[in-house]
């Protein structure tokens, strides 16, 4: 059999095997495991068969709990079945996992192990999730590298059939699931040889069938449950040997020998690290390096963690062992140690009590934590642990990789310790998400891996923003397999694909002496030097760096590539790295271009070819002067007047130095200050809007739709202009209430993302040059400083008196201060304008329960938080619990508020005399129907608090008064908003949402409906319309979108509205106001255009209009209060369809793609979808025409 080498990531490595050896795959997307399901779906869509010649069925469920249920059912019906998940997803599967194990059912779940949400959510890798599942009775097999993921996926699948225990096959999320590495591909013959068809048939025979009826899933009682639970023991006892035998067979077939516990290092080692997961690779490499230098160290890699074979474990340890460090990539707060540490202690203790103990002296065993949430774990850290093991009393319960200055658990390590081989080329590439850097590097590493004899590895780091996000690519290649699951340092090659990054990052600190630095620069080799910060110049001189510039954007412009400089910079990299002769490299790049883009048409291929051909002529070496002459340095990240926390913590995270923050810098309970995005000036847009006061009609539409809260409006007295910067603009206010005042529309120049929605929505055109509107885009750089000054002055202008304006009109609503600003959402986001509106209307009195998803990421992902505060210090209080429970989470908040209001009311009644009956009654009977009423109540409560403070010292009912003082604020009206996307509302959270809506409690639910799982990358939800392409609906979704609104309407007691700001902004505002005012549950479904719809988002509002005009998204409001008044509660706010559905949908890529891939099916689905629309319109218009009951 010839070896086939391939360069791929861990997820693909797992999916390739899982798809071959299963019949049913039930999945639900969750980071970082989603790609496994997507690969499997793609293979099935392409008709790829499994090893038995049939195409596995891939089904997407509504939640991981549902996926586990479906897997359990499929297994019970005799199919070989698998799933892929991570983190909270695995937790949701646990109930079924007990059942599956209890029933001795063969299956493998492939897990990209990830942190669990505790003080915060984290999508990154550690073993918290799999460790939480270790009690389920599943075998647990850990893969440490991409090759092992591929191999163990098969070993687990073979072993489960024989052992009858289900297997969790897990590997480190992101670090392994997303690392690209060159591996040997398993041949299908190997898979066939490994999977015993007799065992497969036995598995099928255990499936339920009425032809041989049995019953499984009984209820048992005290008499027999216990014994039945013990009946499985022989299977657990036999499993380690079965797994070892399977590993041996695998070795015969492939030459790769694995053991339950693999030992690496000095044969007579005294100091041992026990570890599993990708960190084991680092530990092994380091141990080998140190052992070669004569140190008596070794690493025991745990592969089969459950069932834990004490015998095999001890057999693998050198008898010379004196000290054992057990590393857990998880935390079990409050326990005597982390799980694997306890296992090791137990195993050694048990054996030392035997007649023939394995060690002469009981070894020192100490445990520690490392690598939580993908924290770096490097050879330097491994060295520090070995050093600790040499101490007389090693620190038990240590941490490595952080500075714990609170409980002092951490070990120190020496960052300069490096085991990197000289023949490994190490590159770091800084780019923007939108410039294609990552894609190009994925491509490069595939070329190096597959077109040369080199081994290759790539890993990518992204920041937490969805717009203007910064990416870092870490590439290694060399003649030996690359086993270095940590970021590149000491790079021989550093590339900066964005010139503006010179101001933001210290890129050359990781460059080694003599490295090459390639800069995408608009300045040529003769002009660039003095455009570099002084410190960078010095680094270049000191480290003798070879410095090259390439004007990537010029080449991109010339060749029609727009902002995508990927293939251009890639060509520069190949030319400089010399890994291939330049002409061969160019041929390989072109071949990759052909492979990647030919499906998208020849024009794209040609443009990329032209870019490659044009690149080298634009690349020049810079003659490095002997001295640093630049007169500037990198500017500070945050101004020195920012709050202390922002300066000491937030700024470090923004700068990319979060790893250096000590434990003491972290809030202890996940509580963070709001109102911090304003300190993070990202300057990501090349152009920003410029206001033309002369023609502006002050309608407020631009401010309303601005997704990032960058456009603000104020009216103010003419006297307030004093001290205004020269370029500050104003115009006479066109508001009847403020007819003598001035109006200003101000742009925050450093926070704009350049989406141009504002320009698109502006209804006014310049009469002499209609190409100009009342707001137009212009270059940011010349405007930055003057507009910064204007923005700062604008902020000093007073806010409007909210009580005197009719906020139900768009132009007035936009005078209200938004308390949601500058988030990291995508440029042109369709969701954030609704959230911003919510905060303008109710920001000072609302709590938001936010479902996990896009809105929780741009709402709550560090470093900065977009929810802001008004001058009084009020603002949104926000929390994210989970994905599935958000309705219940918000409901709990409401119940708590209601209870506290009742309790405070009761206290106030009881203390009426002490407080004064007039004050008490005015509070108890206050009408808080509008903002003025709420403000009056707040004022009364201030009086109350002062009054209590006065009487408290001499009061008899001191404790009760203190309680009332503590609770008083709850008596001013508060709103609870439950916010989330359609994945939550339509799918995973629907059961809870339904229950909460039916509860009658006064909660306001805002569903930001993008009709797809946006945050995890575009998977189908039940909100996805018929005929749209999404992941898991590659051939267009067959079923119609769920009518969530009508399901809610059917209760008759829920306020329901469907809105689309781009189609009818006035109706949107009306719906928000009515929903909030309704004393019961309300549901607003807001059409949110999204990057996953596949078109330029600047047309988002036009698409909203088209969605409404075609009646795909008919606007309505259902207000139960109207029924009480004898009126028809259902108000249809849309007119009859003006355009056919195809006129709406075929402007969007998600639908048009289908006409390119499955034209006939597209036509059929369009016909059905038009039928859905027609039917629904008929139903709605009939409902709207009904008379009230009076």
């Amino acid at each position, binding site marked *: 059999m010839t070896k086939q080498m391939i360069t791929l990531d861990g997820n693909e490595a797992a999916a390739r095997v899982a798809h071959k050896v299963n019949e049913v795959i039930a999945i639900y997307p969750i*980071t*970082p495991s*989603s*790609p496994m399901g*997507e690969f499997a*779906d*793609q293979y099935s*869509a*392409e008709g790829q068969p499994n090893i038995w010649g049939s195409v596995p069925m891939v089904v997407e469920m509504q939640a991981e709990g549902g996926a586990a249920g479906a897997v359990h059912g499929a297994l019970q019906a005799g199919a070989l079945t698998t799933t892929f998940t991570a983190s909270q997803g695995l937790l949701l599967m646990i109930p079924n996992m007990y059942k599956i194990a209890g029933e001795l059912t063969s299956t493998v779940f492939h897990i990209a192990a990830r942190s669990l949400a505790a003080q915060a959510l984290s*999508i990154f890798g550690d073993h918290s999730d799999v460790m939480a599942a270790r009690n389920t009775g599943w075998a647990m097999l850990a893969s440490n590298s991409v090759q092992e993921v591929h191999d163990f996926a098969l070993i687990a699948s073979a072993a489960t059939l024989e052992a009858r225990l289900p297997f969790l096959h897990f590997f480190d999320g*992101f670090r392994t699931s*997303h690392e690209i590495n060159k591996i040997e591909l398993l041949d299908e013959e190997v898979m066939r040889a490994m999977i015993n068809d007799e065992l497969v048939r036995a598995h099928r025979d255990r499936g339920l069938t009425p032809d041989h009826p049995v019953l499984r899933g009984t209820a048992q009682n005290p008499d027999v449950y216990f014994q039945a639970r013990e009946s499985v023991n022989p299977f657990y006892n036999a499993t380690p040997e079965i797994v070892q035998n399977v590993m041996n067979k695998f070795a015969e077939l492939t030459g790769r020998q694995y053991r339950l516990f693999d030992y690496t290092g000095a044969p007579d080692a005294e100091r041992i690290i026990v570890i599993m997961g990708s960190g084991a690779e680092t530990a092994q490499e380091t141990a080998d390096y140190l052992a070669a230098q004569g140190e008596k160290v070794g690493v025991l890699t745990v592969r089969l963690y459950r069932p834990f074979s004490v015998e095999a474990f001890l057999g693998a340890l050198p008898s010379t062992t004196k000290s054992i460090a057990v590393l857990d990539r998880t935390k079990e707060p409050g326990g005597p140690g982390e799980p694997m540490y306890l296992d090791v202690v137990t195993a050694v203790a048990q054996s030392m009590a035997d007649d023939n103990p394995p060690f002469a002296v009981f070894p020192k065993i100490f445990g520690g934590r490392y690598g939580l949430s993908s924290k770096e774990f490097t050879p330097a850290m491994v060295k520090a642990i070995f050093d600790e093991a040499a101490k007389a009393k090693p620190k038990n319960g240590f941490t490595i990789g952080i500075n714990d200055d609170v409980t002092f658990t951490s070990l120190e390590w020496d960052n300069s310790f490096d085991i990197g081989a000289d023949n490994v080329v190490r590159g770091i590439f800084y780019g*923007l*998400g*939108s410039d*294609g850097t*990552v*894609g190009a590097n*994925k491509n490069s590493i595939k070329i190096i891996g597959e077109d040369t004899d080199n081994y290759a590895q790539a890993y*990518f780091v*992204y920041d*937490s*923003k*969805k717009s203007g*996000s910064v*990416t870092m690519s870490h590439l290694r290649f060399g003649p030996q397999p690359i086993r270095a699951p940590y970021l590149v340092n000491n790079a021989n090659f550093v590339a900066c694909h964005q010139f503006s990054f010179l101001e933001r990052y210290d890129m050359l600190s990781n460059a080694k002496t003599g490295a090459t630095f390639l800069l995408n620069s608009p300045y040529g080799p003769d002009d660039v030097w003095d455009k570099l910060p002084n410190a960078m110049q010095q680094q270049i001189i000191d480290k003798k760096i070879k410095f090259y510039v390439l004007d990537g954007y010029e080449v991109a412009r010339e060749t*029609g590539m727009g902002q995508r400089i990927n293939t251009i910079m890639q060509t520069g990299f190949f030319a400089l790295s010399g890994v291939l002769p330049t002409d061969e490299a160019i041929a390989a790049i072109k071949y990759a271009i052909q492979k990647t883009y030919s*499906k*998208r*048409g*020849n*024009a*794209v291929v040609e*443009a990329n070819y032209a870019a490659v051909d044009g690149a080298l002529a634009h690349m020049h070496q810079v003659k490095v002067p002997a001295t640093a002459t630049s007169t500037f340095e990198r500017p500070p990240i945050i101004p020195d007047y920012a709050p202390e926390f922002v300066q000491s913590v937030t700024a470090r995270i923004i700068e990319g130095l979060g790893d250096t923050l000590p434990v003491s810098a972290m809030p202890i309970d996940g509580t963070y200050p709001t109102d911090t995005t304003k300190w993070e000036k990202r300057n990501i847009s090349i152009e920003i809007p410029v206001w033309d006061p002369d023609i502006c009609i002050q309608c407020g539409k631009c401010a309303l739709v601005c997704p990032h809260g960058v456009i603000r409006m104020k009216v103010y007295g003419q006297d307030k202009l004093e001290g205004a910067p020269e370029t500050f603009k104003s115009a006479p206010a066109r508001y009847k209430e403020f007819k003598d005042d001035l109006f200003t529309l101000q742009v925050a120049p450093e926070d704009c993302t350049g989406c141009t929605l504002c320009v698109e929505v502006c209804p006014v*055109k310049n*009469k002499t040059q*209609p190409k100009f509107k009342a707001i137009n885009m212009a270059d940011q750089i010349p405007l930055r400083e003057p507009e910064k000054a204007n923005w700062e002055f604008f902020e000093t202008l007073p806010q409007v008196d909210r009580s005197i304006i009719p906020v139900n009109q768009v132009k007035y609503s936009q005078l209200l201060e938004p308390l949601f600003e500058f988030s990291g959402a*995508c440029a042109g986001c369709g969701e954030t304008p609704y959230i911003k509106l919510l905060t303008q209307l109710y920001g000072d009195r609302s709590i938001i329960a936010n479902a996990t998803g896009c809105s929780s*990421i741009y709402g709550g992902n560090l470093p900065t938080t977009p929810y802001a505060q008004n001058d009084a210090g009020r603002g949104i209080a926000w929390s994210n619990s989970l994905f599935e429970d958000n309705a219940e989470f918000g409901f709990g908040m409401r119940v708590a508020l209601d209870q506290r209001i009742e309790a405070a009311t009761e206290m106030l009644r009881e203390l009426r005399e002490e407080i004064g009956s007039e004050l008490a009654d005015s509070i108890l009977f206050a009408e808080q129907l509008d903002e003025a009423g709420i403000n009056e109540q707040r004022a009364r409560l201030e009086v109350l608090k002062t009054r209590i403070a006065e009487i408290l010292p001499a009061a008899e009912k001191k404790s009760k008064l203190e309680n009332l003082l503590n609770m008083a604020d709850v008596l001013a009206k508060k709103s609870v908003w439950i916010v989330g996307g359609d994945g939550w509302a339509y799918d995973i959270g629907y059961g809870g949402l339904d229950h909460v809506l039916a509860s009658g409690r006064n909660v306001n639910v805002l569903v930001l409906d993008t009709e797809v799982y*946006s*945050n*995890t*990358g*575009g998977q189908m939800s039940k909100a996805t319309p018929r005929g749209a*392409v*999404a*992941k898991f*609906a590659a051939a267009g979704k067959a079923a119609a979108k769920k009518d969530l609104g009508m399901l809610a309407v059917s209760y008759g007691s829920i306020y329901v509205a469907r809105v689309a700001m781009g189609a009818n902004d006035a109706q949107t505002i009306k719906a928000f106001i009515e929903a909030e005012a309704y004393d019961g549950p309300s549901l607003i479904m807001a059409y949110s255009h999204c*990057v*996953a719809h*596949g*078109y*330029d988002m600047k047309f988002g509002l036009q698409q909203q209009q088209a969605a409404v005009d075609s009646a795909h998204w008919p606007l309505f409001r259902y207000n139960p209060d109207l029924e009480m008044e004898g009126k028809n509660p259902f108000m249809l706010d849309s007119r009859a369809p003006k355009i056919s559905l195809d006129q709406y949908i075929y402007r969007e*890529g*998600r639908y*048009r*793609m289908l006409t*390119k*891939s499955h*034209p006939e099916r597209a036509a059929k689905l369009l016909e059905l979808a038009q039928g859905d629309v027609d039917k629904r319109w008929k139903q709605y218009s009939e409902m709207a025409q009904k008379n009230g009951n009076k």
Partner: protein
Amino acid sequence: MDLTTNYLGMTLKNPLVPSSSPLMRTLENLRAMEDAGAAAVVLHSLFEEQITQESHTLNHYLTQGVESYSEALSYFPEASEYKTGPDEYLEHIQKAKRSLDIPVIASLNGVSTGGWVKYAKQIEEAGADALELNVYYIPTDPHLTGNEVEQIYLDVLTDVKTAVSLPITMKLNPYFSSMAHMARNLADVGADGLVLFNRFYQPDLDLENLEVVPNLKLSTSTELRLPLRWIAILYGKVNADLALTTGVHTVTDVLKGVAAGAAITMLASELLRNGIGRLQVLKLGMEEWLEENEYESLAQLQGSLSQINCAEPAAFERANYMRVLSSYAPDYP
């Protein structure tokens, strides 16, 4: 009645040929045209510009937002195949050829030299009987001379003729300073036919919204005059078959066109407005008129009122203009 006519070396059963329009996009319509008596069909145009744009658009929405955020490294499933480029159009030719007995003439609108040639070859391979080159070109650059503009047409034709052996017909606009000379040049370079005239969609201005708006107005019979005149002038003087397009709506229009010298008369607006069934009405009406007026065949009529054959050749020249002006009497005193 013998209605046959020769066009691009093909004998057509009558002069009624539906021209390039959105109607040609479905096989169902093409079949209906054949059933209603169409002698050939000219398919809708393959636009190179559109192909290029679609390719870039597809690429744009497949790459938009990707590799930027760790949870969403892409937003769409990777389909194994997209029908981009001319595939759909070429398939349409193949299907049309399979299901029709009448000739199928493809239509191509190119941009680049490479594009014209590449797509012409593919169209030939797909089995089209002939190719109409739809040079929809508006010279807006004030530095571009008339000669240069003419050369663009001649170059395109030369390139395509060199690359394919299909009969080629050129669809022209009337805005040449010397139409007859241009027609002769094209015929000399190898045009097998000339289609007179392309009808440019003239954009309208929307004063309400201060916008230039595309505005498709269907033709009427009054627009017949321009091509009628030039067909009559060119008939017998250039070595290419003449096709009349624009303004053909009635039996009289068809007969006039043939009398002027057109080998075929092409219809689009009439079919869009009144349905494909109009072909049958026109065919019957033509037969009826020819019979009533005791013609032996349509060929007898063809070119009979062309400039070389008519009684008053000068009527197609300046005198015509003078006569119209002098015969014009205002409605008011």
